[in-house]
């Protein structure tokens, strides 16, 4: 009966708690409601509860099931369908297995308990349960399910109980006994205080539970833990009978699987799943237990009250107080352990286990205290651990679940949780299926690398750096050419960059190659030159060709020889070891070298080069020392070496000769050479002769060359220059003669004599050039030239041109004409001549005068145009100043007429003015003459007083009226002064 709700809860509860941790908060409330209803039932039916109670309890358990299932319906089915497949298994046969209702007193109902147990054990859905042997005593069945060793008689002596609990303890495994001591010590103390507290409980034996439950209710509200506590604490009001089965169930279902499967849990990869699956059933325990055990407890309470009226409250007190106390302990422990669970499942399981022992042990202590009532004690003992265990397990599981769920939904936590596993997972996966792993990772690997590069370039570089060179080498080895192709475009700039960075390093790196490259190139270039030379038919080329054929050497070598002359200065045969000179020959012409010193230093240099520069094992010799245009050739034999100091480039033939000489010396005089000890007399004179031969051959080669080649080349060159020059000279002379003859003929002609004509003769052609004033003279000159040189072809290029008149003459003529024109009365002009253009400025009295001026100037040769700006005389008609009869004074209006005349003079400063006085016909002619002169004088004076210089003014008097005034006209017209403009030159004249 007790197990029924539990199993039904088994099916449903785990899903609930797995779905949502939040729902565990709502649960306690419903559970408490449930409890209350149960309590009410219990109160009602408690006193009459007997064997009939079986039916009643079924009902209440059914309601409990209904309640406990209630809140889950909404969300469970959808969320965890996978669990539904397992869920029905448990409820499928709970009733037959678990329904046997244990009597509150196990002694009374042993058979039913036994049945329950056996059916429970037969249940296939609980594989973790060990199959027990046939129980000896019916009362021991509950514990027997867990372990055979445990045998608890319902009504035995305390000692037996003790042993049985010891056995239980050992059954629950030994690992963590030490931690028990502390809670054990704490538990009794707490028990005492709780006892005191509970002793104040109402003595009414009917409702001992109520205060506690209410108290618990208050506690239950705030949190899930409190709720769990409440549901767990509620059982203490019950009695012991259920505890057997409950313990069995708890041990079997919740704590045991957990303990017995640490390996499974420790398998980290499955930890979450397994935890959920295996631990989920546990939270249902308090819910399912509560109503059941309450009922039972109530029934039992009343029973015990009836049975033992003498000491009714004590067991109650103990049972109520102790569990609550132990609960508190276990709760805290459980919380701790659940916290630990996240990090290390097996450890936490141990921790969970330890409080279980504590509880069982503390109850042991309690049981000893209560020896006087074995039954109560047993109840107490059995119940306490059971409660403690269940509660603790529940709590811990709840915590775990919460934390697990929290971890699942919190990425950070999940990451933390998975972090230690990732490497293992990956390595396992890689070990299992390398290929699949590679394939699955392949698509993202480039993005991974790119992302990493973007994040941290440096670390990526440093990560890749160690393998880069090898990778390149591998790449080059795998696919030769590709790498070169990839790098090629960057090569030029890379070299440039390197040169920028460190020029010297680049030079050093290329130096070994460049020498040979250049020499190779030079060789090719020379060969090319040689080919060109061979195909050229120049006299030099031909002569060289002949020589090369005769001597049997290539032309290139001859060219080289020709350009590079050489001379031997000195030849030394030097002892290799000591550096002493054995024999020497020096050119007579050059400055003598200090043979011993040279030999010593050369030996030292040779030794130095061989010791320090030449690679070990590399048999190389210093064979040449170059300095400027000179060099020392060293040819080394076994005990001696031959040095030849020379200038210029020795031909290969000479080098061969040096070698031959050394070979001869070594072959003939090897002993003397080897044993040389500083005495030159030990060396035969033949050696010195051999050396001298080298110098002689070199000078011979020099002597041979010069004459023939130079002579041929010189004469050819001379011929090439002289012959054309001679021809040219002859022809030039001939031409000069012809030209002179023609020139003479031309100048003999008087008409042409004044003109300068050029005559050029080129063979049979005569070219005339120059200028003549007309076509006639031009043709005449041509005829004369032809006549003078009848065989020649005359090219007459004389130009017939208009000879322009001399501008100076023209200018003089213009001046002359100007002067003539100014003689005309009233004409006063000034002219300027420039480039054939005459400008005329001035005044004239009449229009015909102007025309005359124009035509006169146009007739002058050289004058191409005449520009006339002549004003017709403004004074001529208008200006006459009249006087009174017999008066020479200006009066009134007449005096005003002076002003225009003054203005005229100011306007034409180059002009002068003749003032002519007149008189009427009346009176004495002599007086009239005087009067006329006076009148002119008066005007003159007036003009002078106006600022006109007297030089510009002429005056005269005529004792009669002007010509245009005849006798018929009035007399006053005769009494006047008239004005005639004068040109400047006219004035001077």
């Amino acid at each position: 009966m007790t197990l029924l709700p539990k199993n039904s809860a088994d099916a449903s509860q785990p899903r609930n708690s797995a779905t949502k941790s939040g729902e565990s908060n709502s649960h306690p409330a419903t559970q408490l409601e449930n409890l209350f209803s149960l309590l009410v039932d219990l109160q009602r039916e408690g006193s009459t509860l007997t064997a009939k109670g079986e039916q009643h309890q079924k009902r209440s358990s059914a309601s409990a099931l209904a309640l406990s299932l209630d809140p889950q319906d909404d969300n469970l089915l959808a969320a965890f369908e996978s669990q539904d497949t397992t869920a029905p298994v448990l409820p499928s046969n709970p009733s037959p297995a678990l329904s046997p209702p244990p009597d509150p007193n196990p002694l009374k109902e042993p058979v039913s308990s036994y049945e329950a147990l056996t059916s429970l054990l037969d249940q296939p859905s609980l594989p973790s349960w060990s199959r027990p042997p046939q129980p000896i005593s019916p009362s021991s069945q509950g514990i027997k399910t867990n372990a055979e060793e445990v045998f608890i008689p319902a009504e035995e002596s305390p000692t037996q109980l003790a042993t049985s609990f010891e056995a239980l303890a050992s059954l629950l495994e030994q690992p963590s006994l030490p931690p028990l001591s502390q809670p054990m010590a704490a538990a009794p103390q707490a028990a005492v205080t709780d006892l005191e507290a509970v002793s104040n409980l109402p003595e009414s034996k009917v409702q001992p539970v109520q205060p506690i439950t209410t108290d618990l209710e208050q506690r239950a509200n705030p949190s899930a833990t409190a709720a769990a506590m409440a549901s767990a604490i509620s059982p203490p009001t019950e009695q012991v009978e259920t505890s057997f089965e409950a313990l069995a169930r708890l041990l079997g279902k919740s704590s045991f699987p957990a303990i017995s499967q640490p390996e499974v849990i420790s398998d980290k990869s499955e930890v979450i799943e397994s935890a959920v699956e295996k631990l989920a059933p546990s939270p249902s325990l308090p819910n399912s237990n509560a109503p059941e055990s309450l009922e039972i407890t109530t029934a039992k309470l009343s029973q015990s009250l009836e049975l033992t009226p003498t000491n009714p409250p004590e067991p109650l007190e103990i049972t109520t107080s102790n569990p609550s106390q132990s609960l508190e302990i276990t709760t805290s422990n459980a919380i701790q352990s659940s916290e630990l669970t996240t990090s290390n499942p097996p450890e936490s399981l141990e921790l969970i286990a330890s409080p279980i022992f504590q509880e069982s042990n503390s109850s042991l202590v309690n049981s000893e205290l209560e020896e006087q009532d074995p039954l109560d004690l047993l109840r107490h003992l059995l119940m306490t651990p059971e409660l403690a265990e269940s509660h603790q397990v529940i709590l811990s599981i709840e915590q775990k679940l919460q934390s697990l769920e929290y971890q699942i939904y919190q990425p950070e936590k999940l990451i933390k949780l998975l972090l230690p596993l990732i490497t293992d997972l990956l390595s396992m996966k890689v070990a299992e299926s390398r290929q699949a792993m590679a394939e699955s990772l392949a698509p993202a690997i480039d993005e991974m690398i790119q992302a990493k590069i973007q994040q941290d370039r440096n670390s990526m570089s440093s990560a890749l750096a160690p393998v880069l060179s090898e990778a390149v080498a591998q790449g080059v080895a795998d696919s030769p050419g590709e790498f070169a192709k990839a790098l090629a475009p960057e090569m030029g700039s890379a070299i440039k960059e390197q040169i920028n960075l460190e020029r010297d390093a680049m030079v050093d790196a290329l130096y070994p190659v460049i020498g040979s490259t250049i020499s190779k190139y030079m060789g090719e270039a020379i060969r090319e030159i040689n080919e060109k030379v061979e195909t050229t038919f120049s006299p030099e080329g031909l002569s060289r060709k002949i020589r090369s054929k005769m001597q049997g050497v290539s032309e290139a070598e001859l060219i080289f020889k020709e350009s590079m002359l050489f001379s031997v200065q000195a030849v030394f045969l030097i002892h290799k070891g000591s550096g002493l000179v054995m024999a020497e020959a020096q050119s007579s012409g050059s400055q003598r070298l200090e043979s011993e010193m040279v030999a010593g230093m050369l030996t030292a240099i040779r030794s130095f080069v061989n010791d320090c520069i030449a690679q070990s094992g590399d048999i190389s010799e210093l064979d040449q020392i170059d300095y400027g245009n000179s060099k020392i050739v060293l040819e080394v034999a076994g005990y001696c070496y031959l040095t030849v100091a020379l200038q210029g480039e020795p031909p290969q033939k000479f080098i061969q000769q040096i070698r031959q000489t050394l070979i001869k010396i070594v072959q003939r005089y090897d002993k003397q050479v080897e044993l040389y000890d500083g005495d030159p007399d030990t060396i035969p004179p033949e050696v010195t002769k051999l050396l001298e031969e080298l110098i002689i051959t070199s000078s011979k080669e020099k002597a041979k060359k010069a004459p023939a080649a130079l002579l041929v080349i010189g004469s050819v060159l001379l011929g090439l220059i002289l012959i054309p020059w001679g021809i040219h000279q002859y022809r030039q002379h001939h031409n000069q003669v012809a030209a002179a003859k023609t020139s003479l003929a031309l100048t003999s002609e008087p008409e042409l004599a004044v003109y300068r004509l050029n005559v050029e003769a080129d063979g049979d052609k005569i070219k005339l050039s120059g200028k003549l004033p007309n076509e006639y003279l031009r043709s005449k000159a041509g005829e004369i030239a032809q006549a003078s040189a009848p065989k020649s072809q005359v090219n007459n290029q004389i130009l017939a041109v208009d000879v322009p008149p001399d501008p100076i003459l023209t200018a003089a003529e213009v001046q002359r004409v100007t002067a003539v024109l100014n003689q005309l009365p009233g004409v006063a002009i000034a002219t300027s001549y420039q480039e054939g253009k005459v400008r005329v400025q001035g005044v004239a009295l009449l229009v015909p005068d102007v025309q005359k001026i124009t035509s006169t100037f146009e007739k002058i040769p050289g004058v191409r145009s005449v520009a006339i700006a002549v004003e017709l005389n403004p004074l001529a008609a208008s200006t006459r100043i009249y006087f009174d009869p017999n008066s020479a004074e200006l009066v009134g209006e007449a005096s005003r007429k002076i002003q225009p005349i003054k203005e005229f003079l100011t306007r034409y400063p180059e002009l002068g003015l003749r003032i002519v006085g007149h008189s009427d016909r009346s009176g004495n002619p002599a007086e009239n003459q005087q009067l006329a002169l006076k009148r002119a004088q008066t005007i003159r004076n007036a003009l002078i007083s106006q600022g006109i210089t007297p030089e510009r003014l002429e005056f005269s008097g005529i004792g009669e009226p002007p010509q245009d005034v005849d006798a018929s006209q009035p007399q006053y017209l005769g009494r006047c002064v008239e004005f005639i403009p004068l040109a400047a030159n006219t004035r001077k004249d």
Partner: protein
Amino acid sequence: MISKKICLVGDFGVGKTSLIRRFVDAQFSDQYLSTVGVKISRKVVEITPNNQPEKLKLQMLIWDLEGSNKFKAIAPAYLQGARGTIVVADVTRIDTIDRVSGHIYNFLEINPQGFLVVALNKSDLVDEEKLSKLLEMVQSQAQDRVIGIYPTSAKTGIHVDLIFETLACAIIEKE
């Protein structure tokens, strides 16, 4: 005229070049000029060997070798073909005297028939007593190819010509 190669060896700064300069040019300068590589000098000496009645002219080609130290040995090629060697040490630097035997050994390894003279140079800088002690010290190191140990001074010229002439005599006589 017979020519002979002789070498001057010794630690750097003991006065090899100064001794040669004193011998060849009869000059002395207290300026220190380190010899790089080899410097070759030449001097003709007239000697009258014991076993011969008339004077002999000998051209000495003196190889002044770069001073050595414990890290840098003399290049063996420079010693090749030398009939005699003057090992020079500095009396003011005891370590140069210690290495005299090393120089002797090096030379004889290449030229087993060669002759040696040990010159304890800069003898003008120490007193007689110390000098005689040092002479004894070198004497103990010497081998039978060492024909003489002399305190010399390029500055005062003491024993300078003597060491060269002694060596020249030995070379001529023993042949």
